[in-house]
């Protein structure tokens, strides 16, 4: 700016010289000295404005005007602190809620996973399309994994993953530790490194290889006191000794990269060491997935295309197992968050609508204030201010206000996220709950987001006063008196804003109402079993002393017997996987006496292993035949129990006594005789319809991997009161048995609804905000209209109008605006609610009850909001009203 200063100094000298020269010429023409100087000045023009104009030539004009506008804007905002505070707080609520939801969205959906180039990492799952079974996210078989790995040329590598849990003994109490069996290539594929030691090598990832384990940081610290010599030690897993070869970094989590609850997270990894028999097994699908990294030049579409070709080839080579089995290439993040994505986007959308409502509320406030500032603006226009300049200044004011709101919003967002975390909402979101939630905080992205939406909000609500200025007629504004200066157009704009606001509010509230309806329906779904009074716990016998099925069977039998002796316990049983915990396994089977079908058309059913007494304990009725008994031993007739839904595979009325087998009829698998039919119950989750299911008795199980994991205990009174006795009963059979997940079945049921409850809670919060905003907006516009018409009302009353008529006048104007908004909102919601259909249970997105209730609620609120000012108008004293003028 040095140049500008120099040029301005030059200018002043120039002007002096100029006027002096002119004066001298005038003197030469014979003027008096005073006359000469005066004429010279007159001819030169206004020195000040010339200097200012030249100054502008040298200044960065827009920047200076901006600073000027900001100074002026701050002054205006400070002049009406009440208005500023109310507007900033309302905005703060809107922006804060938006920022909080965005922070969750960012942490869960947008932020990169904590692996280098994580966008190149994909999960390979099976896309199964059979007549009786369709699943796009099916667990792969180890045979498929091996063939995918051998045949593809598009991935750097593929690693297999299988969930494993271990009983960790020695060094203190026995505990169950979640772990993962993985291919040796997993760690290099993820590009992660150990903190101590190394990860597996290829020689350790073969069947019969050495028993080695890589430990998570959390387990290393909590169980082994961060022992630096851990690498020289072995640990006992399921009673077998494993050499510790590495400890992972503190922030390494796998497979859920954001599981920060060490007690729930995976804490150790062992080589998956698939045997040759497994590697050629295409029929059993028990890997959790196959992780792969795309080669640098490859993209997702090419990968999917190549895997499709490979799947077709496998279907030709293994028609018995691979017909109808494709490959689904899913980006890792998609796999991790796929089930919560739509909820989060819907929440973000809803809170965006609330923010728009806030904007229209503030626009209305600004309009009200604008009508008192109308004269100021008109005066400035009359004095020659360019409209553009005034517009810019008004927008600066709006944006300043919005940024102030943004600051309040960031505070609200911090409080909001803190409150959500404090309420442990994130942790109780259920097994399929929000991943990455440990990270949620209002970070830089949240701040940037709130800044951007503050600016946007400012521009949006700044439009209203701007529109006002564009239409401002300086002449009329200045001639009219202050009190009656309200022009018709401004009133109309205010009405439109309230209509829009009400319509937005209806949309948000409809969303919440639909979700509420569907959650209420979900809570009333008959489960098919009785959760009250039921205690559940997880006990998995998995050490060398239980390597034989009969050893496990005798443990189950003995432990269940002991549990039933505990005071307060009525009965007990155990199952492979507890209902409502999102576990699903399926088998294809053949029915004796029914027409033979191709492998693609085989009946499919879920399967579960149960102990005798499991159905009775759960309260699942045995409809036909009998329950299992401990006499169903491997030496006796192999038996199964089916559920009602599975009966559809029989053409006869009563399938009891009929036989089935796994796979196709000609396969060398044993036949099982159906001995009983039990009632349907909700298994995978509450929302899914019961599907055909076959139950096998644990006492006949011959497979090494067949286990009962979840135990159920029917109690009298409070289930948790018996938990100590139940533990003791189990420990009296085996004192080294870890017992985990001790909880009431009611809690399991609640947890399975936690995600819906979370979504509903937030949406209900936004809906409440929307109701308040809509009411306040409606009230404001009606009260203002009434105040503007005080004189008119006074005249009407003076001329003999009834007070009831006055009330009707105000009420009808306000209500007609409100009802228009409600109507438009219903129309908008009818089309918008469709995006929610994936979240709804048993309620169509056009549910007339939800829509009707919302329309009624908002109509009542509208009437109340109009009634208050209308009542006040009714009581106007005509004498006072007329004297006011």
């Amino acid at each position, binding site marked *: 700016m040095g140049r500008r200063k120099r040029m301005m100094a030059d200018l002043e000298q120039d002007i002096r010289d100029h006027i002096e020269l002119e004066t001298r010429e005038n003197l030469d023409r014979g003027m008096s000295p005073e006359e000469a100087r005066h004429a010279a000045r007159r001819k030169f023009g206004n020195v000040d404005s010339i200097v200012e104009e030249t100054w502008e030539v040298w200044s960065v004009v827009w920047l200076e005007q901006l600073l000027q506008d900001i100074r002026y804007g701050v002054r205006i905002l400070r002049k009406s602190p009440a208005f500023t505070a109310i507007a900033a707080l309302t905005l703060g609520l809107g922006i804060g809620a938006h920022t909080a939801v965005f922070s969750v969205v960012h942490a869960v959906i947008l932020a990169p996973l904590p692996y280098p180039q994580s966008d190149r990492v994909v999960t390979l799952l099976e896309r199964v399309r059979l007549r009786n079974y369709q699943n796009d996210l099916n667990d792969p078989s180890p045979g498929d994994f091996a063939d995918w790995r051998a045949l593809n040329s598009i991935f750097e590598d593929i690693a297999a993953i299988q969930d494993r849990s271990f009983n960790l003994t020695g060094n203190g109490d026995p505990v169950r530790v979640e772990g993962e069996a993985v291919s040796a290539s997993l760690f290099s594929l993820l590009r992660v490194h150990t903190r101590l030691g190394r990860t597996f090598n290829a020689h350790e990832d073969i069947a019969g290889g050495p028993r080695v384990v890589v430990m998570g940081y959390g387990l290393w610290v909590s169980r082994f006191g961060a022992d630096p010599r851990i690498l020289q030690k072995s640990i006992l897993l399921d009673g077998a000794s494993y050499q510790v070869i590495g400890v992972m970094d503190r922030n390494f989590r796998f497979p859920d990269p954001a599981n920060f609850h060490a007690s729930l997270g995976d804490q150790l990894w062992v080589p998956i060491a698939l045997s040759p028999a497994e590697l050629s097994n295409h029929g059993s699908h028990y890997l959790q997935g196959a992780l792969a990294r795309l080669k640098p030049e490859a993209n997702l579409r090419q990968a999917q295309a190549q895997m499709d070709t490979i799947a077709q080839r496998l279907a030709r080579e293994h028609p018995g197992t691979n017909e109808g089995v494709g490959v689904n290439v899913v980006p890792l993040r998609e796999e991790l968050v796929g089930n919560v994505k739509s909820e989060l986007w819907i929440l973000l959308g809803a809170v965006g609508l609330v923010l728009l409502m806030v904007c229209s509320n503030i626009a209305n406030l600004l309009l009200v204030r604008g009508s008192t500032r109308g004269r100021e603006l008109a005066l400035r226009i009359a*004095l020659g201010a360019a409209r553009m300049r005034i517009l810019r200044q008004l927008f600066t004011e709006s944006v300043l206000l919005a940024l102030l709101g943004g600051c309040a919003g960031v505070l609200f967002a911090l409080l909001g996220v803190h409150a959500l975390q404090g309420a442990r909402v994130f942790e109780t979101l259920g097994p399929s709950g929000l991943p990455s939630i440990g990270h949620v905080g209002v970070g830089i992205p949240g701040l940037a987001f709130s800044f951007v939406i503050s600016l946007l909000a400012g521009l949006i609500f700044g439009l209203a006063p701007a529109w006002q200025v564009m239409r401002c007629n300086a002449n009329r504004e200045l001639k009219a008196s202050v009190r009656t200066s309200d022009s018709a157009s401004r009133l109309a704009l205010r009405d439109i804003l309230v209509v829009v606001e009400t319509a937005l509010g209806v949309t948000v509230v409809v969303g919440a109402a639909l979700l509420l309806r569907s959650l209420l329906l979900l809570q009333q779904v008959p489960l098919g079993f009785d959760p009250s009074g039921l205690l559940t716990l997880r006990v998995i016998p998995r050490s060398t002393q239980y390597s034989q099925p009969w050893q496990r069977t005798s443990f189950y039998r003995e432990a269940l017997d002991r549990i039933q002796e505990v005071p307060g316990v009525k009965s007990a049983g155990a199952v492979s996987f507890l209902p409502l915990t999102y576990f699903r396994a399926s088998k294809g089977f053949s029915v004796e006496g029914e027409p033979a079908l191709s492998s693609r058309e085989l009946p499919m059913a879920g399967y579960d292993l149960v102990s005798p007494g499991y159905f009775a304990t759960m309260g699942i009725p045995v409809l036909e035949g009998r329950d299992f008994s401990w006499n169903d031993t491997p030496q006796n007739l192999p038996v199964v129990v089916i559920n009602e839904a599975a009966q559809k595979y029989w053409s006869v009325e009563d399938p009891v006594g009929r036989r089935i087998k796994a796979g196709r009829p000609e396969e060398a698998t044993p036949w099982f005789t159906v001995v009983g039919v039990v009632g349907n119950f909700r298994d995978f989750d509450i929302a899914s319809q019961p599907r055909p299911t076959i139950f096998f008795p644990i006492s006949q199980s011959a497979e090494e991997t067949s286990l009962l994991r979840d135990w159920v205990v029917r109690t009298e009174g409070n289930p948790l009161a018996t938990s100590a006795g139940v533990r003791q009963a189990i420990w009296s059979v085996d004192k080294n048995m870890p017992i985990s997940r001790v909880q009431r079945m009611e809690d399991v049921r609640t947890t399975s609804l936690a995600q819906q409850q979370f979504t509903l809670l937030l949406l209900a919060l936004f809906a409440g905000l929307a109701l308040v905003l809509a009411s306040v907006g409606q009230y404001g516009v009606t009260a203002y209209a009434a105040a503007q018409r005080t004189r008119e009302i006074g005249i009407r009353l003076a001329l003999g109008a009834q007070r009831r008529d006055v009330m009707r006048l105000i009420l009808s104007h306000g209500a007609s605006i409100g009802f228009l908004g409600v109507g438009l909102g219903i129309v908008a919601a009818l089309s918008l609610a469709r995006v929610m259909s994936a979240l709804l249970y048993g309620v169509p997105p056009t549910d007339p009850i939800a829509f009707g209730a919302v329309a009624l609620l908002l109509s009542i609120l509208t009437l109340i909001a109009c009634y208050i000012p209308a009542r006040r108008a009714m009581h106007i004293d005509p004498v006072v009203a007329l004297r006011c003028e």
Partner: protein
Amino acid sequence: MSTRRIEDRIELLQGTLDLLIMRTLLLGPTHGHAIAKAIQFRSDDVLQVEQGSLYPALHRLIKRGWISVEEGASENNRRAKFYRLTAKGRRQLVLETSKWDKLAEAIGRILRPAE
């Protein structure tokens, strides 16, 4: 009368005034007062330029690099600012002059179509 209309007039005059200043300086460097006089004299007093408005225009031209300013002595040996047309300004003047000619011709044709 609103200042808005004055602004309009300056807007209208700006380009023209710039052109006149540069044309005057084509004859040689001179100071502000002399430029004003020259424009007035050469237009037979038809163009009554408010003398002050010359200066923002001069500074605008300096900023664009079309003229430069230097110290010099006026006729009666007083120190004064002398404005000089730069090479860039000379090229600009040729350009602007031909534009002006075209404009004048076009307007002339519209105003006196019969000729």
